């Protein structure tokens, strides 16, 4: 059969067009699906904020880099806003309410008109300004938040407050945290300042538990066991820290006060291994994996002191990493290879109704509940060679998932920030494993550690 040339061209165009439409449709469907979970966590639209560097006078001048960095980190890491790039800001930055001018006609106010900040190129919805000075030997910060979409200057000011602190770096950080917290409170959130991350570091030569502030500052050694110590778990209220240690030769669980660093009584089951602890939100129970049956690693629960041990799974497979729903306490995520490869399962708190959440492809590890009790983060090798994990998040009800990292080395052990908007995780993308954070949409990727090998982070509310 002979085809005329125009017909052939037409047919191929049609085929090509169909392909294009199909792929566009798939891409659209994919992006639609992925954004659902992220939007659920981060909100439908993130307001844009302009955050120009604040200026200081006198003795406050030297403290401004610390103050501005702290303010920026708090606001940006909250994930509440999209922080507009500083390079787009006008040349003149108002420092107090008296600096703003009522707009004249269609002219550009060089930063002194509110609309200079709402129109391109800044295109912000909100503007935080202020300045710092020394007053009677103390540091004082004047902080203002403006709604720059509000045409009336009188109505645009959301708040203007003064913050007092000591005249040093600590004071600068303190006033910046307070200002950031007041900004975030307007949007139903709060700063992560005061939250801590516990992690495993080998920088002393042994793997030990360490802690640091949410922004990577003040890295401190928590355990001094001089033995392989790993898999920290923090109670939802931040008061108890459990972990696994080889201090007695075989893997055993220990429970400590996260605040006083005092060891709490915990009797381990007679087993070759007790590991991957998890503390319930009432601080009364612990879930863990154990070889107490002398055959395989199964999920158990016990009182916070180890008494009253009860077995929850009977699969005979390798089952680890139980994670109790922080909102309901009613269901448990865990890793099992009962289906052949390690995948993530969910079961009732009593061990009943286990069901697989991940598809069965690749290997899935490290489940972590979002504080919302619905979304989980986990490490999955789906689409990559074994061992090359990426961070995914999944709605445990609809089982829709989205991928947050893409093949930059090995990304694992995700853990949610207390506000549920960020993730901390371990990644060897730059060589050795280090602790990183990112927003729940995969942006704002920041490295928090650089000394030694650092892994297995957990984020504590305090």
């Amino acid at each position: 059969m002979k085809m005329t040339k125009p017909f052939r061209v037409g047919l191929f165009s049609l085929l090509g067009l169909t392909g294009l439409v199909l792929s566009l449709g798939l891409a659209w469907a994919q992006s639609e699906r992925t954004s659902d979970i992220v939007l659920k966590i981060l909100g439908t639209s993130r307001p844009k904020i302009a955050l120009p560097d604040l200026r200081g006078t006198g003795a406050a001048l030297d403290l401004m880099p610390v103050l501005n960095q702290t303010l920026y980190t708090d606001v940006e890491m909250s994930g509440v806003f999209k922080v507009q790039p500083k390079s787009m800001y006008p040349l003149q930055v108002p420092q107090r309410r008296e600096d703003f001018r009522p707009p004249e006609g269609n002219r550009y106010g060089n930063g002194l008109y509110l609309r200079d900040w709402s129109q391109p190129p800044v295109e912000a919805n909100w503007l935080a300004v202020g300045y710092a000075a020394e007053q009677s030997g103390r540091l004082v910060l004047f902080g203002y938040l403006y709604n720059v979409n509000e045409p009336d200057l009188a109505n645009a000011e959301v708040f203007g407050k003064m913050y007092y602190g000591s005249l040093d770096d600590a004071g600068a950080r303190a006033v910046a945290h307070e200002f950031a917290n007041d900004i975030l409170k307007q949007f139903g959130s709060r700063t992560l300042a005061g939250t801590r991350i516990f992690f495993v570091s080998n920088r002393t030569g042994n793997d030990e538990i360490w802690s640091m502030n949410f922004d990577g500052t003040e890295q401190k050694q928590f355990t001094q066991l001089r033995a392989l110590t790993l898999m920290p778990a923090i109670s939802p209220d931040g008061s108890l820290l459990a972990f696994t240690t080889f201090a007695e030769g075989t893997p055993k669980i220990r429970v400590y006060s996260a605040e006083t660093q005092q060891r709490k009584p915990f009797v381990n089951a007679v087993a070759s291994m007790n590991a991957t602890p998890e503390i319930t939100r009432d601080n009364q129970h612990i879930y863990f994996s154990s070889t107490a049956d002398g055959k395989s690693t199964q999920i158990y629960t016990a009182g916070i002191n180890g008494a009253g041990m009860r077995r929850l799974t009977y699969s005979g497979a390798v089952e680890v990493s139980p994670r109790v729903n922080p909102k309901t306490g009613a269901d448990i995520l865990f890793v099992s290879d009962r289906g052949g490869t390690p995948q993530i399962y969910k079961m009732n708190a009593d061990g009943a109704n286990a069901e697989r959440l991940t598809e069965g492809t690749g290997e899935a590890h490290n489940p972590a509940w979002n504080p919302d009790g619905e979304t989980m983060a986990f490490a999955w090798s789906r689409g990559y060679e074994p061992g090359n994990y990426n961070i995914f998040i999944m709605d445990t009800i609809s089982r829709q998932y989205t991928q947050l990292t893409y093949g930059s080395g090995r990304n694992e052990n995700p853990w949610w920030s207390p506000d549920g908007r960020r993730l901390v995780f371990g990644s060897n993308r730059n060589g050795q494993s280090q602790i990183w954070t990112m927003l729940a949409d995969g942006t704002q990727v920041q490295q928090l550690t650089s000394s030694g090998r650092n892994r297995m982070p957990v984020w504590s509310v305090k």
Partner: protein
Amino acid sequence: MRKKYVVLSLLAIALLLFVTGCKKKIPAPAPLPPPVVAETKPAAPTIATFVAEPSSIDRGQSSTLRWVVEGADEVSINNGIGTVMASGTRQVFPNNTTTYVLTARNAGGSVTRSVTVNVNVPPPPAPEKPPAPVASLQERVNQLVDAYFDYDKFGIRLDASSALTQDADALKSIFRDFPSASLILGGYCDPRGSAEYNMGLGDRRARSAMEFLSNLGVDTSKLRPVSYGKEVQTCSEATESCYQMNRRVHFATGN
């Protein structure tokens, strides 16, 4: 016949008369007084004292025997000492616990008394090591071979089965030569799975090997399974040959 009896009787009377007549006629010499000794037996001798000072010694030290005997003609002590004075002392160097017997004699008899010198023998020198296990426990354990596994598996492969069969014989011999030995059977994983999951997988590998060894008659109560997950790596390259080196069970000494 009757005359015969009369004659004999007369003769006997005459003889009797003769004899008695003679006695009076010839004065007999004064009889010798009977010997005193023969007449009253003397008392047996008395051992007033027979002691060893000290009565307990270490081997190589001496003890002094001291005795006092009364009324003896002859005093002797056995064990090669022989006749001694009625009272005296004698230093003795017994090698082992020895009982000395003192015998005192006279015409009236003999008496004995014994005394024992206890000799504390020093503990014997450590017995020589049995010649069979020339190698130390550590050296013997170092000769045990690792058994290897497939990725994310704990089943015993053919090569692992021959390795463990070889180990089984060696283990039996080790436990025979070192009856109190207890070994660690460590389970290890390559670095690709998660640390948490690999803790469980390593334990599975150790238990899998233990079961295999048990079926070959090894006393596995002397083996302790310990999972090191992926926390201890023998090889750190990201190659399959290196991964394979890490997927293993390995024997070590330890409690």
